């Protein structure tokens, strides 16, 4: 069997400007056939514009779009083998569900649509609703109609523009799994635009994090989370504690850093910045990787772990974990999430503590960046 790459999406140097505003900076991106690809970013980051350029709804200011071997840059949307699930669905209000789903087939001159439409409605479990109008369905059902309407055309690529944005949390979870199931079943390339990092990480094989019209980082969800390469990714995907540190020396595979009075170890492989002695880097660590020990028991901490001292400023119990905010000389608001196993009753606000973690969980970033990039943009409502 030869590898079929007709479902590859290849963007080369593609960009979009509106007057003096640049929505998307020149961008190269390849989405391999059959993958579930997510474009993740805050509102206005250019992810929807990128999607619309693939759909043909927006003409790129420069660059080309290829589907497989075919250059589709100048094809109008109705000639591209690509279909879109629109934000808020855009179901035709004057047509019933059956006709909405049959729309694409009829436009391409398919004569007998009945069997195909019925099968497709079965796939999304809406066989009973065929003769209803869109406004008579619930949000989740409308969403499934939108997916069916696009999928029935067997597109090379399915584009999803915030497809779950209008649903409530519980339904959203359910539909995430549902969409993932459908994608596995039909094996089509999915390109999914979302502002919800959890959604992107749950569903996609590959995530591209976009910010201000550029791709900040691209990779598998675990890779992005564990090894962010910019402060934006570190802060936008989950929470990160970032400490400004100075490179002290190198020892083997590790870099030794000075922060405040103490020393921290960082694996060289996990440092995306130039680590020249005397230079600065940002050291990051995720809050759930950190353990808390009462200052009186500091001697019990095993050797070889990175440590920082501080005082508990605040703690909140949220069931599965307890979240602490630690006031430390190297970082004023250090966050620590501790699993609720063997809670130490002495860890109340005001207590002096030692934070320690495995150096393998440390990552290093270029210190020239804004340390707060991507903070607070997470929950924003969406493009």
């Amino acid at each position: 069997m030869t590898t079929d790459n007709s479902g590859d999406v290849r963007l080369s140097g593609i960009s979009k400007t509106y007057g003096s505003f640049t929505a998307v900076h020149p961008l190269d991106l390849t989405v391999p056939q059959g993958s579930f690809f997510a474009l993740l970013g805050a509102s206005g980051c250019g992810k929807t514009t990128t999607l619309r350029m693939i759909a043909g709804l927006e003409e790129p200011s420069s660059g080309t779009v290829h589907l497989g071997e075919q250059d589709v840059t100048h094809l109008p949307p109705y000639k591209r083998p690509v279909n879109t699930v629109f934000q808020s669905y855009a179901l035709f209000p004057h047509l019933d569900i059956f006709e909405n789903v049959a729309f694409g087939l009829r436009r391409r001159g398919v004569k007998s649509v009945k069997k195909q439409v019925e099968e497709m409605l079965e796939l999304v479990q809406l066989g009973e609703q065929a003769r209803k109008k869109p406004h008579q369905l619930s949000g989740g059902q409308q969403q499934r109609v939108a997916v069916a309407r696009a999928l029935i055309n067997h597109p090379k690529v399915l584009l999803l523009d915030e497809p779950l944005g209008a649903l409530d949390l519980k339904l959203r979870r359910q539909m995430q799994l549902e969409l993932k199931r459908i994608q596995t079943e039909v094996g089509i390339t999915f390109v999914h635009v979302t502002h919800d990092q959890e959604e992107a990480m749950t569903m996609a094989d590959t995530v591209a994090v976009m910010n201000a019209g550029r791709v900040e980082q691209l990779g598998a969800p675990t890779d992005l989370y564990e090894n962010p390469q910019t402060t934006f990714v570190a802060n936008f995907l989950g929470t990160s504690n970032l400490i400004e540190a100075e490179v002290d020396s190198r020892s083997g595979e590790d870099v030794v850093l000075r922060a405040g009075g103490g020393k921290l170890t960082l694996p060289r492989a996990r440092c995306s910045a130039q680590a020249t002695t005397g230079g600065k880097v940002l050291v990051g660590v995720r809050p759930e990787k950190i353990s808390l020990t009462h200052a009186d028991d500091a001697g019990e901490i095993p050797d070889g772990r990175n440590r920082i001292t501080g005082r508990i400023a605040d703690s909140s119990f949220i069931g599965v974990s307890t979240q602490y905010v630690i006031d430390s000389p190297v970082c004023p608001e250090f966050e620590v999430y501790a699993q609720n196993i063997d809670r130490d009753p002495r860890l109340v606000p005001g207590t002096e503590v030692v934070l320690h973690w495995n150096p393998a969980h440390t990552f290093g970033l270029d210190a020239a960046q804004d340390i707060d990039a991507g903070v607070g943009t997470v929950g924003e409502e969406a493009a």
Partner: protein
Amino acid sequence: MSTITRAEAPELTPAPETKPPRRRGRWTPYWLLLPGILWLVVFFALPMLYQASTSVQTGSLEEGYKVTWHFATYWDALSQYWPQFVRSVLYAASATILCLLLGYPLAYLIAFRAGRWRNLIMILVIAPFFTSFLIRTLAWKTILADGGPVVGALNALHVLDLTNWLGWTAGDRVLATPLAVVCGLTYNFLPFMILPLYTSLERIDPRLHEAAGDLYAQPFTTFRKVTFPLSMPGVVSGTLLTFIPAAGDYVNADLLGSTDTRMVGNVIQTQFLRILDYPTAAALSFILMAAILLMVTLYIRKSGTEDLV
């Protein structure tokens, strides 16, 4: 109708991302506009210019007219017909106020209190439109007939004494008096008040009433502080839609009034169609237009609603 019927789609996407692609058809809008706009330019704007030029011409029907920049026509027309101008403004203003007073409760009723009768009442408000307004205006001749039940009742309640004293009626008659003309104007333009009022009332979230009540507002205070201010767009376009046609009307004054109730519309009509004194008629018509545009502009400025189309 220049009611403010804008239902904009909620803007979900930031501006740069919603712009529809317009790669083809840079000339399409001009082709779409061309026939209609041409029609309005030739048959609406151009006639205004012709009229302006006619108003400064002198001559006679037999010898033809020439533009002589004879602005005295304006002065003559004003000094001769100022009572008709004043009357037009007074009658139209009275009718507009009456329309607002009568129309508001009905619009409110349809918007908030009609329940399942809403559609039926709506139909009953609009349906009279489908009977020629001249026929309906003639019916007022019967309703207000001398010695009829309406006049009898007004007489018995001594309302006529009051209106006589105010100069709105004369003796035992209502017909052929200012009251009859204003009554006819009010009747004819009432739906133009009710519909925009209804449109803006209907958009008010009923929960606002509850919120106002919850915050210690008496029902009347709620109306004064919440409902009425929110219905202002409807009030503005309703008053304009009533006042403008009423000020230029001559049908009611002719059918229900007398020679003492002639409005400026009657004068223009007579000058144009019977006396054939075109310059005077054109000047009168121009003054009316200018006066109304001026009043409307001032009114819109003052009420702060510029969003009329």
